[in-house]
């Protein structure tokens, strides 16, 4: 639909153009720039991003100093999702999504947002998109920086180069998972209006609670396969995509940490579907709430 343009003279005597109903790319562009400016004007995202970059550098030094297997190298570059049950970068950067929504309610910023942007739906989509893409970019950038440092250190030490050819798949899964975490946080915060329970949930659920739920479900006849398909177990399966060398010393322990034997692609699909469901439910709450 082609937008109709009307011209009105503003209070300041300026001439302003306002587009009449219809699809318009400028609405999305303005919403993205609005959200980008909101995020970049705060200090906390820079601090969190800085911490992730430092961890990424540390990971690179760690890989450079040790002779890890390709699977272990990928795990370190993915911010150790096996050891911490989710990428450490996700635990740090999901706050981008939670605060993007919680500040709307806590400080009446939603009034400014709703009176500035073309629609609540556009505003919400921009918040989810900007926080997710920023978090994923920071995490991926930190990983790649770590890989470069590891390669450099190996070259200096005269050791074989990092297996770059094996990295695209784990890095792609890692990027998708990192896109999902802030979106999950944004959706959950939109549902409950408060970031504190969301932060507690996202810290505790993958670490402890999902395991307990999985144990209980596993005891129900016919549900034995369900624990491996729970969202965060599925995301670990998606990240652990360099299999085939399961005969190493700690393979049993690794499998226990993984907690899922679903195919990485299916794991990624499950986690993405769960994220989309939460984001859509959060969006419905966000667009309907009075402010």
């Amino acid at each position, binding site marked *: 639909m082609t937008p109709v343009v009307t011209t009105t003279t503003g*209070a300041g005597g300026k001439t302003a153009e306002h587009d*009449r109903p219809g699809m*318009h790319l400028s609405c999305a562009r*303005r919403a993205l720039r609005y959200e980008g*400016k909101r995020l970049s*004007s705060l200090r906390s995202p820079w601090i969190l991003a800085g911490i992730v970059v430092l961890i990424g550098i540390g990971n690179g030094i760690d890989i450079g100093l040790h002779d890890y297997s390709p699977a272990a190298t990928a795990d370190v570059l993915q911010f150790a999702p096996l050891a911490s049950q989710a990428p450490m970068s996700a635990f740090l950067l999901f706050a981008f999504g939670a605060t993007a929504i919680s500040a709307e309610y806590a400080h009446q910023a939603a009034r400014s947002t709703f009176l500035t942007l073309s629609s609540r739906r556009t505003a919400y989509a921009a918040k989810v998109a900007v926080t997710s893409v920023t978090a994923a970019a920071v995490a991926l950038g930190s990983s790649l920086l770590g890989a470069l440092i590891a390669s450099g250190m190996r070259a200096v030490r005269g050791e074989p180069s990092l297996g770059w050819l094996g990295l695209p798949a784990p890095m792609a899964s890692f990027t998708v998972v990192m896109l999902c975490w802030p979106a999950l946080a944004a959706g959950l915060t939109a549902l409950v209006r408060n970031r504190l329970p969301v932060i507690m949930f996202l810290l505790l659920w993958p670490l402890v609670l999902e395991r307990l739920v999985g144990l209980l479900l596993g005891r129900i006849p016919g549900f034995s396969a369900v624990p491996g398909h729970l969202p965060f177990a599925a995301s670990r399966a998606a990240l652990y995509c360099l299999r085939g060398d399961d005969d190493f010393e700690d393979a049993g322990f690794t499998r226990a940490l993984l907690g899922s034997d679903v195919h990485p692609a299916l794991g990624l699909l499950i986690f993405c579907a769960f994220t989309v469901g939460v984001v859509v439910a959060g969006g419905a709450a966000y667009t309907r709430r009075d402010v």
Partner: protein
Amino acid sequence: MPKPASAAPLLSASGLAKSYRGKRVVDGVSLAVPAGSVTGLLGANGAGKTTTLRLMLGLAHGEGETAVLGRPLREWHSPGRVVGAVLGGVGGHPRHRVRDHLAMVAHGLGVPVGDVGPALAAIGLEQATGLRLGQLSLGMAQRVGLAQALLGSPRVLILDEPFNGLDPHSIAWLRGTLRRIADEGGAVLLSSHLLAEIDQLADHVVVMARGRVTAQSSVDQITERAGLHVVVESPEPERLAAAIAENGGCLEPLDGVRARVTGLDRHQVGHLAAERGIPLYWLEEKTPSVEEFYLSVAEEEFSTS
């Protein structure tokens, strides 16, 4: 005196209604704000003024429809460029600096970020540009909120208690700014408890009580309806009352010292007192104020409930 407003409403609402837990807090509110006018929304605490404004702005969901420049606000791609709103200071992250917050809004509105500086200069807050929103005083927050509302150069302004927290200088500045916007063809709707400010500024008043509009009128109509009255002070009020009654007027005591005369103007009262040899210590012709209009409407409303 303000210029008479043109007929076409830039902002109109019809049948606005909102319930909280079964209680009707706004009930069938309809009002129109013509171009070139300032409309004051009056009412006691809990009358439903703020909820009405939030309904009009689409911040709260309810029944009814609001049109801004002829169409619902949700249909405008850049709502901040057709209506500016100030609802109790500035809504934003307390860690944001003023310049960053306004730059963010400028990005959202699609106006040049370079407009932020002049907007801050216009409200006299150039020195506050580096302050965080959480550091602003109530008055400063109101002014930043107004700068934000004006950033998109909208033709319609909606303000909820805009004089709260402002010093006398700022109040005078705000009054002048709102008057100028209306005189340039804009439409301003503001709620306020400060009836004296509404009296000085508004062309129209809408009175709300218990979620309903109980009266709305132009200031000119109020004057016509209530007419002028004269305030007098005399040591012989009984003789003066009798003389005024003989000439078709009416004298009512006000506060034990002064009295209000209706039906005669100050010239007639002065001549009458001089003819009868009745001393006068005070003689003043008064136009009915918005405050008196509001109080009379409110009194009526409460006496019938």
